[in-house]
């Protein structure tokens, strides 16, 4: 029951998001040039299809929200399913860690360090963090550090060599 209400609440919120997104798209489409001076028929203007799609998305969003409201999305959720749980549970911590590591690697390290070094660091940090801090059966830190370093060096070297010289691909 609680879970059903939780997903209904999520549907209610996303329904609202889709209504806003749909209307924004429709508005932007409406504002697009119609090229009437070039003799373009109003139905052939660039904004026609986005306008239709924006409208449809808003309609579907409204249906989704309406259905969610009927399923009890407006009812009160218990403490256990509050927003804080979204951050505090073990699963969420694992998720956020993975996202943070991935973003750090792609957005920061890759522009700053050479590809092989950035990749090695990312692989090393990911393995160590998931094997020790975020694991239910944590490994000993020094063991994980050494083994992960070995894997990181191998991966960085192999990926760089294979892609650059084997498949002739340019790397970031």
């Amino acid at each position, binding site marked *: 029951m609680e879970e059903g209400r939780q*997903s209904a609440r*999520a*549907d209610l919120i*996303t329904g609202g998001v889709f209504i806003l997104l749909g209307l924004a*798209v429709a508005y932007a*489409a409406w504002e*697009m040039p119609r*090229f009437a001076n*070039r003799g*373009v*028929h*109003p*139905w*052939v*203007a*660039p*904004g*026609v*299809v*986005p306008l239709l*799609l924006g409208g*449809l*998305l808003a309609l*579907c*969003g409204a*249906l*989704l929200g309406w*259905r969610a409201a009927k399923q009890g999305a407006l009812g009160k959720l218990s403490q256990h399913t509050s927003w804080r749980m979204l951050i505090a549970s*073990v*699963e*969420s911590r*694992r*998720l956020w860690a*993975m*996202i943070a590591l*991935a*973003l750090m*690697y*792609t957005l920061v390290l*890759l*522009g700053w360090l050479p590809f092989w070094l950035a*990749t090695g660091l*990312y*692989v090393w940090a*990911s*393995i160590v963090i*998931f*094997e020790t801090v975020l694991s*239910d059966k944590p490994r000993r830190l020094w063991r994980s550090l050494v083994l*992960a370093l070995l*894997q990181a060096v191998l*991966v960085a070297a192999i*990926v760089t060599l294979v*892609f650059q010289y084997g*498949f*002739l*691909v*340019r*790397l*970031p």
Partner: protein
Amino acid sequence: MFMIEGLSMLGGGIQHFLTPLSLFNVAWATLLGIVIGMLPGLTATMGVALLVTLTYGMPGDQAILTLICMYVGAIYGGSRSAILLNIPGTPASAATSLDGFPLAQQGKAGYAMGLATVSSAIGTVIGIICLAVFAPLLAELAFDFGTYEFFWLAVFGVVISGRLTAMGDPLKGYIAGILGLLVAMIGMESLQAYQRFTFGVHQLSGGIDIIPAMVGAFGFAEILTVMRRRYDAKVLVSQDRVVPRFKDVWRFKRTSVRSGIIGTFVGIVPGVGEDIGSWASYAAARRASKEKEMFGKGSYEGLTAAETGNSAVIPGALIPVLTLAIPGSTAAAVLIAAMLIHDIRPGPMLMIENPEFLYQVVAMLLFTTLAITLYGLSLTKVLVKVLAIPREKLMPVVYVLCVIGPFAISQRMFDVYVMIFFGLAGFILREMKYPMAPIVLGIILGTLLDTNLRRGLALTDGDPTPFFTRPISMLLFGITLLVILISIPVVSRTIKRLCLALGLHGKLWGKARHER
């Protein structure tokens, strides 16, 4: 005459790939596909999308050969983890685990894997026969398709995929489809060369590339899903016989053929892929079986149906790819993108411009079927070791590949950012039970829909009549409307009541409910 010509072209296709280089590519790509399919979290679509990068520098025919081997290998490989871990390696093997895992618990893991191998091979072969027979016919039909028909085909593709990939909740399927179509609206449109939704970002003027989007939605999103889970599953092993007895295969010949045909037809339906093909074949087999009670408890027949069904989808999914440039599954969508990269233009003109290509594809499928059979029956014990790789060690490497893949095609970091965006968005949408296939279909078919709607209206000076009166248009419009109407609860309840009144209830609705 037609038949003989086809056979000689098929011979030509097979001969074309009887070179050491081709056979080498078949060998490694199929094996890599099996490994990717086995590993939970790495799907066929992701494998094919990442491999597009590696095959970028190859000649077109070798690149497509490699990608098809990856596709077939991965769909087959998924059965391994379904049987040994009770976790389908790819969504296509979800039905396989229903009977495969109980068999493994009974100590018959090896035999289950052997039977899955032979069933996959049979399924692919049935699909290949349908591909070789129906693709030329459909291509002929496609010549009658004009602007109006292509518009409806695009609409139909998105709607049917939205309906069938979100069985329980079609509304979410349709929303996913609309989101995909909206993504396709980004960038320069072709009629007036106006840049839509680019917000001054010049990298957006060419639109969103499908490969980075797919790598995000099927790679990064999947990595997040896998890494979030707390526990890892245990592998079951057994030392029993692997090669299936002929009598076990022969006993289920009806099930095999039925599942193969169901799978192929599910494959033809735009954007409806292996997972649905497998479930539909499984449901049909259970309905027709004499041993219904065994299903779910380790039935050989159920396993056969699931594996034949999902493998037959692959050649089926290639039928609309080659004849209409419409993807029959998400991995097939990547194949379309890859063909375009290599200057192979799928669609009605393919049969005229490059008639031998269809038979080359048939030959590719035959070669990879042979490869999965050989690997499947011989490397059982070696391949099990792949499942022992811990995800902590594997997933960071996969993410590195997800970064390289999108970058390599056009050498810009922007595509990597697109991958990250689609990964995060895809993860959130998936968590909220939105199917991914309609999004992919929307992205692929958006331009087709937009251009043909407006071109059609330009031709008639704003009069929409031909969209509804030309025979094929009318048919496609009718089916699309029907699909949408049935998914509205009020309408479907009314139809149900009508059927009840007419005494058709058990036949029609019992069947539909069963399939869910």
